């Protein structure tokens, strides 16, 4: 797959968020801004979109188990069919947005792009964008596993309705989000008033764009344009939360990794802990390889590739990140460190 072919693929943005968080508000914003782009929008409920758009496609979320013996390997059958249909008229739109229902698990959507060859040929997953309600998210994280999944899965999180909470409550909800997912870029919004460039064309699933993933959530927060830096993010005033069941594990290994140890290890971890792993990514310095090896995964599915060369001023080191539920943190940490060359 050449880079130019990869660029020609239609980007797909997945919009998730618990009921009432503001997904439709964001969708209407995207469609009404004068960006000159044409979007095909896959929605579950017709009628909520206030914008006249000829390419709004109603879908039933049909989650299929792949009959391949892998229990967590589920895909959105309706999405495969819709993308196949849309690709017959490529010139009519520039990008696809998939709005999921409030209770949806984002994994089957993402896995559709790993599993289906025809979908892969035509489209690429750009990012999972989750809209969170500033006032109610903390409550939802306690009582709704779907809401937690959506936060854990996200590449971009919009904390919406910030005008309805105090700054202390806002910091609290941000800390709760960071406890689950320290890597997503976080944006504060009222009525989803975010810059569209923060939401679209993120290339979050692009192996070439697994940038410097920093296993330190304070550094990760630096990507957040909306943060008030006078707010104390760079001192240690920020309260650290630990989510009871959803967490991230980041491991760094200085120097090279032995591919003969790493490949079986990453396959084993994703097979054994796959149902609990929502997302994983990593940059690996393979012994004897001048190029960086990058990978990412969803549950048991992995996608990896040899990427660009390590630069001369770059330290050869490897980092892996897992976000998931009840992860066996010590096993992951020790297992990865044992892959050292």
């Amino acid at each position, binding site marked *: 797959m050449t880079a130019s072919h990869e660029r020609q693929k239609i980007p797909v943005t997945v919009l998730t968020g618990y009921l009432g968080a503001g997904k439709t508000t964001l969708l209407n914003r995207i469609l009404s801004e004068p960006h000159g782009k044409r979007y095909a929008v896959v929605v579950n409920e017709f009628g909520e979109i206030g914008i006249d758009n000829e390419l709004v496609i109603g879908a039933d979320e049909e989650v299929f188990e*792949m009959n*391949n013996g892998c229990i967590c390997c589920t895909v959105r059958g309706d999405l495969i069919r819709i993308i196949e249909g849309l690709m*017959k*008229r490529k010139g009519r739109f520039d990008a696809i947005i998939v709005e999921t229902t409030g209770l949806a698990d984002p994994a089957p959507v993402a896995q559709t792009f790993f599993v289906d*060859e*025809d979908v892969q040929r035509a489209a690429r997953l750009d990012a999972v964008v989750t809209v969170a309600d500033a006032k109610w998210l903390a409550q939802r994280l306690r009582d709704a596993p779907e809401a937690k999944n959506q936060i854990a899965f996200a590449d971009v999180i919009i904390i919406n309705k910030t005008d309805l909470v105090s700054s202390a409550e806002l910091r609290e909800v941000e800390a709760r989000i960071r406890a689950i997912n320290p890597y997503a870029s976080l944006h504060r919004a009222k009525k989803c008033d975010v810059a569209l460039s923060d939401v679209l064309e993120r290339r979050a699933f692009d192996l070439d764009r697994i940038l410097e993933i920093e296993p330190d959530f304070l550094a990760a927060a630096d990507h957040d344009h909306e943060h008030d830096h006078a707010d104390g993010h760079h001192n240690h005033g920020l309260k650290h939360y630990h989510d009871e069941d959803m967490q991230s594990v980041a491991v760094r290994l200085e120097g090279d990794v032995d591919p003969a140890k790493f490949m079986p290890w990453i396959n084993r971890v994703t097979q054994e802990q796959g149902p609990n792993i929502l997302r994983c990514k990593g940059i690996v310095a393979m012994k004897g390889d001048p190029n960086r090896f990058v990978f990412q995964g969803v549950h048991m599915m992995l996608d990896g590739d040899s990427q660009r060369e390590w630069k001369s001023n770059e330290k050869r080191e490897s980092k892996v990140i897992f976000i998931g539920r009840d992860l066996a943190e010590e096993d992951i940490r020790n297992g990865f460190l044992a892959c050292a060359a």
Partner: protein
Amino acid sequence: MTEAQTTASLTQHVRPIEAGAHVIAAAFLDGAPALALADGVVLMGEPDEQKRVVVHPDATILTAVGDGSTLMTGGDDGRVVASRADGEAQQIADEKGRWIDALTLRGNACAWSAGKQVRARDEAGVVKTWSAPSTVRGLAFQPKGYRLAATHYNGATLWFPKVEGAPQTLEWKGAHLDATFSPDGRFLVTSMQENVLHGWRLQDSRHMRMTGYPAKTRSLSWSQDGAWLATSGADAAVVWPFKDKDGPMGKAPRECGVREARVTIVAFHPKALVVAIGYADGAVLLCRLADAAEIPVRHPGDGPISAVGWDATGARLLFGLESGAAGLLTLPA
């Protein structure tokens, strides 16, 4: 096809057609070529005297099927339209903007689906409706009797539109796509999301699994004698033997036209055991089942072949590409 031994290539017998849009189906209407195009147009007539009939204005043709005198198209406008050689286009149904996902045609009867909803229309124009458990991807009429197979998640259902009562569901785990009956009506075969074919012997619902495909099979074609089923989805046309009472069980398929490119479309010749094969790289060739002898029809280029169809006599072959290129082969006499 006796000239097959002596003809090295048929490429000089192909007249190019500039279709201009993704070719959804290649058919013949009363002997004249007709291409259903994604931009809502049916392109009719010989290469130098074609007319463009807009049958789905401002819409996309998603699926199309021809039977020699009618080309039926289903669009993302929710409409089902029957076009004939004289250019007349008759609206058969309007599902109000819902996508038409599958179509099938037999004589004056037809059936289509939009999401879970399946409708069958008999010769007299009476329409019956059945709701499937999940979105229907494929439809096929049983060769005899007014009975329809519809594929869906976890199986296929056989429905008699004129009979009250629960239809018979043939279960098999996974997402089923296209459906086809063997010409003698003994077998139903479906293609699946998991790169396999599934089949049922209808007499006893016995299962058949046809595996080994690196990609999804989206094209299935029976030989005229019903003894062979040609399939896409591999780097050759995979042709399964169906002559025996157990169908292909325990038997190896034949491979025709092995190349380093994925087969996207297959179409058996209506009289001879020769299969026309279209590839993802734009090549088309004819392959004789008996000795796997190959004759090129189109050289690679311009992207995947998306449609191939023979005329009723087997003298002409029409093909089209996703890129909008197309061609008409006339076999030398």
